[in-house]
C-alpha cells in the first residue's frame, strides 16, 4: 500500500519520449514552435505550482519570468559571462525576487493577493522602461554573437541551431517536470493541496500555512524565472514586453486550459493555445475574439481544464 503515483510517472516518461521523437518527424517550422511551447510550458508549470496546486491566483507571474530573463540576459550582455553561468544567475535572480515578493504578497489573501501581485508586476514592468539605458526598454537588447553559443564538456552548443535549441529546451523541461513530480506527488505537495482545499483546517492540524504558501510561491516563481532565463538566452533577445501584463495572463490561460493542479496540464494548455493562436492569426486578425469565446466556454463547462476534467471523470491519478 502506497501513496505514490506510478501511473502518472509512467505517463510523464512516455510524454518526454514522445516529445523527443517528434523532432525526427516534424518539419523544422513546427520543431521551432515546439521549442517555444516547451519553454512556455515551463513558465506555466511554475504558475500552476502556485495557482493549480496551492490555490493562490497570482496576476503577476510575468515579473518572475522577466526576473529570470533580465538576470540572465543582462549578465551575459554587460559582463559577458558564459551562457550556463548566465542561466544559473537567471534562476538565482528569480528565486530572490519571488522570495521577497512572496514574503510581502502572502500577507494578503484572495482578491487583494491578486491585486498586490499585479501591482508588483506592473512596478517591475515600469522599471524595465524607466531604466531603458540599461534594459533597452521596449526595443529590448539583442545578445551579441559571442553570447549565442557556449562550450560545455568540450562540446560547442550553438544557440542558433534548431536541433540544439529543441533538445536543450526538452532537457530543461524534463528536469523541471521531474522536480515538480517529486514535489507535488510527495508529502510537500500534499500540504500545498491541503492549503488549497482547506487552509484553516490545515492550520488546526499543526501546520504553519504561511510557510507552506511561501514555499509554494518561491518554487513557483523560481520555475517561471527559469523559463524566462532560458527564453532570453535561447532566442538571444530580452525586452520589456516579457514583463508586461499580457505575459502574466498567458501563463494563467495555459494553465486554465490544460488543467490547474495537474502535472501535465500546462504542457497541454500551452500547446493547444499557442497552436490555436498560430493557426487563427493566419486566418483572421481578430483571432483574440475566438480565443475569448473559447475561454468563456472552457470556464463555463470545463472549469477544471482539459486534464482536470479527464481526472475528475475517469482518471483519478492524473494530478
Amino acid at each position, binding site marked *: *500500500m502506497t*501513496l505514490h503515483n506510478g501511473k502518472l510517472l509512467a505517463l510523464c516518461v512516455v510524454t518526454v519520449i514522445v516529445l523527443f521523437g517528434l523532432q525526427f518527424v516534424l518539419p523544422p517550422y513546427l520543431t521551432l514552435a515546439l521549442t517555444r511551447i516547451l519553454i512556455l510550458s515551463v513558465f506555466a508549470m511554475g504558475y500552476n505550482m502556485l495557482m493549480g496546486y496551492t490555490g493562490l491566483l497570482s496576476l503577476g507571474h510575468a515579473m518572475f519570468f522577466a526576473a529570470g530573463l533580465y538576470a540572465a540576459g543582462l549578465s551575459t550582455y554587460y559582463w559577458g559571462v558564459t551562457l550556463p553561468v548566465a542561466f544559473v544567475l537567471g534562476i538565482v535572480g528569480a528565486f530572490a525576487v519571488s522570495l521577497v515578493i512572496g514574503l510581502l504578497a502572502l500577507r494578503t489573501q484572495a482578491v487583494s493577493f491578486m491585486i498586490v501581485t499585479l501591482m508588483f508586476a506592473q512596478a517591475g514592468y515600469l522599471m524595465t522602461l524607466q531604466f531603458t539605458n540599461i534594459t533597452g526598454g521596449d526595443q529590448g537588447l539583442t545578445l551579441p554573437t559571442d553570447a549565442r553559443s557556449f562550450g560545455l564538456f568540450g562540446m560547442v552548443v550553438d544557440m542558433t541551431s534548431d536541433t540544439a535549441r529543441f533538445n536543450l529546451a526538452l532537457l530543461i523541461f524534463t528536469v523541471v517536470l521531474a522536480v515538480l513530480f517529486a514535489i507535488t506527488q510527495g508529502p510537500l505537495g500534499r500540504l500545498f493541496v491541503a492549503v488549497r*482545499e482547506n487552509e484553516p483546517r490545515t*492550520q*488546526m*492540524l*499543526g501546520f504553519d500555512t504561511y*510557510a507552506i504558501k511561501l514555499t509554494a510561491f518561491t518554487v513557483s516563481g523560481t520555475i517561471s524565472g527559469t523559463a524566462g532565463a532560458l527564453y532570453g538566452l535561447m532566442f538571444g533577445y530580452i525586452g520589456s514586453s516579457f514583463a508586461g501584463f499580457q505575459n502574466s495572463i498567458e501563463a494563467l490561460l495555459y494553465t486554465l486550459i490544460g488543467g490547474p493542479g495537474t502535472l501535465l496540464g500546462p504542457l497541454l494548455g500551452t500547446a493547444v493555445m499557442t497552436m490555436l493562436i498560430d493557426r487563427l492569426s493566419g486566418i483572421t486578425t481578430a483571432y483574440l475574439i475566438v480565443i475569448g469565446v473559447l475561454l468563456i466556454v472552457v470556464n463555463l463547462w470545463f472549469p477544471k481544464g482539459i486534464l482536470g476534467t479527464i481526472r475528475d471523470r475517469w482518471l483519478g491519478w492524473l494530478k
Partner: protein
Amino acid sequence: MTLLRTKGLSRHFDGLKAVDGVDFALDPGEIRAIIGPNGAGKSTFVSLLSGRIKPSAGQVFFEDRDVTGMPAHKRVRMGIAYTFQITNIYGAMTVLENIAIAAQNRLRPHLFSRKPVSEVEIARAATKAAQEVGLGDLLYETAGTLAYGHQRLLEVAMGLALQPKLLILDEPTQGLSDSEIENFQEVVRRVAQSATVLLIEHNMDVVMALADRITVLDNGRVLAEGSPGEIVHNDAVQAAYLGAPA
C-alpha cells in the same frame, strides 16, 4: 501536575462576555465534559484553548508552559488537537489522504527535513488511525461523499493521527444516529487510554456514560464542577437548565 490550566480566561465580543474569567484545570488521563445551555460560551472557551481565537484577558498553560500567545499550529505540535463542531475535512480528498495530512504533521514536522519519514510510514500511521475509528474499509473513498456519521469519525481519526496529549471534541455526536453514538462512545473510551479528552456535548446520556468529571458553563462563567453524580444533583445547574429559581 495538571495537563492544562487557565487563569482568568476571558473573551469579549464587543459588549458580550462570551467567556468571562474562567479558571479551569484538567488532569492528565481524565475524560472531562463541558456542558451548559446554548450560548454559555463552551465553543468559544475551547477555541481559546486551541488557539483558534485570541483571549481578551487571562492565560492558558499547557504542561505548565504559558501558551497564551502561541499560534494554533504550534499548540497542535505541543499536543492539543481539536476536532471541529461543524465537520471540517478535505472534501475532495480520499479518507486516507485526509488522515495522512494529520499523520504527516507528527511524523514529518518540518517542511524540509533531512531525514524525511517515508510515505509508506505516513500511510501506515494514517491507516491505523482509520482502523481505530472503524473507517478501515473506506480508505479510498472521497471524503466529501461519505455519510455524515462517517465524516464525524474521520474528524476524530484526523485528531487521533496527531497522537495528541489532549483531544478536544466539539459536539462530536451532533447529528449521529443512536447506533453511531454507541460506536462513537467506544472510540472515545479507546482514545482515553492514551490521551486526555475534553468533550463538549449536549447529549446528556453520552456525557454521563463517558465523563469522569463535568464542568458546567453558564453565561461565560464556571457554574459548577464535579463528578456526574454531583452535577446531576446540583441546584444551580438545575436552575440554569430548567429556569427554576436556585
